[in-house]
């Protein structure tokens, strides 16, 4: 999908109007951002916003996150184990300390 984020009042207004006029192309609308369908028309709307508002518009192409393809097993397992922890107030740092689960600081440094 195409994620369009606006960074000025005027760009936000244009996005709002575009979303109102082209509901079929809008997957979801947030305050000043929207997810557009990945069709040529979605691209057309995104290009128009970029033409009119230049750097006040950020456009990203998103795709579904598949944790089995995109994240290492250690990360998946750590997430599952942490969500299954007995004490809800334990922060992850403490939970992971002294275990085989990955260190949060190290995870922050490693790109997917």
């Amino acid at each position: 999908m195409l994620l369009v984020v606006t960074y000025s009042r005027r760009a936000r207004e244009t996005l709002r109007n575009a979303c109102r006029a082209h509901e079929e192309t809008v997957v979801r609308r947030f305050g000043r951002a929207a997810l557009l369908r990945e069709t040529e028309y979605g691209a057309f709307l995104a290009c128009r916003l970029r033409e009119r508002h230049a750097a006040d518009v950020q456009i990203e192409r998103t795709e579904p996150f598949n944790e089995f393809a995109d994240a290492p097993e250690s990360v998946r397992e750590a997430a599952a184990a942490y969500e299954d922890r007995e004490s809800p107030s334990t922060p992850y740092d403490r939970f992971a300390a002294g275990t085989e689960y990955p260190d949060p600081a190290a995870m922050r440094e490693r790109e997917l």
Partner: protein
Amino acid sequence: MTGSSAESPFALRLPDGTVQRGPVVDLREGAVGTALSLHRLRRAIRDGRPTGPEAPAVSSPPPGATHAHVARLAFDTRIRTRAALAAVAFDRGVETPHDDDLLEAARSLRSHSPAPIDDGELRDARRKAAEAGAETDRLRERVATVRGRVTALREAAADDARRSPETDEGVADAETALSDATRRLSEAATERVAATQRLKLLEAQARNARDGRNTRISLEDRLENCRRKVRAARVDAVSDEFHAARRETVRRVHGLDEAASDALPTDVPEFVDALAVARIAPIRAPVVVAGDVVGAFGGADAAFEWLDAPLVIC
């Protein structure tokens, strides 16, 4: 109804050179008045100076914020009542609890200048990265094709016991083409990496610069919120007086009693709003009034007294 208008008369110099002095100038009689464009007259009042050789000139105190809302009073006058009431309160110097917030919000926004993003450069980098990618893909296919041919020729040469010089030459040519294509692919791949890295760098910079824009849009929203609050407080401050003036004006213009005021035609309310706004506003620059409005008040003097504003009747 401060009596201010009487202390601030005005002078209207007509295109023919004659000068008429307010607080009330009646242009209904005579050729000059009828030839005068309403638009030019209003511009002269607003700008306070001649706007052209044939244009009228008005010397009067500067029109306040309310003036624009009631610059012309006629039966078809339309008014944005809330905006006009906020202007009345502003002209009166009404203070609201949100004034300081508004000033502060405006100041924050003024002093905030988000880092520039060179959009042209970014667009250029996007195009180069896309082109370098396409070129690399094209050359990769070319290398695969040529490599296939070299392999085929080599195998054919090996099978051929009595190799002719032509066959050797064919293999050599194909090998040259392959090394040429491979070299170009490697160059294109290098360019692609460079273009991709440059784009990544510029995008990262743009992302950082957008943090500043994020702040700016919050500041703009805050300013708008403050404005809305100030406007609401200003409207509140003069609302009672406005409604009283409205009721009085309805009684005055239509000669109706209070209970019957809702029997007015539906297109009249905005006109009555405009009259009531003019009545309660401190207006110093002349208001252009239509003759039939003056008639509804029972004459120029009565209209002047009621509206408490300098008038040009035409």
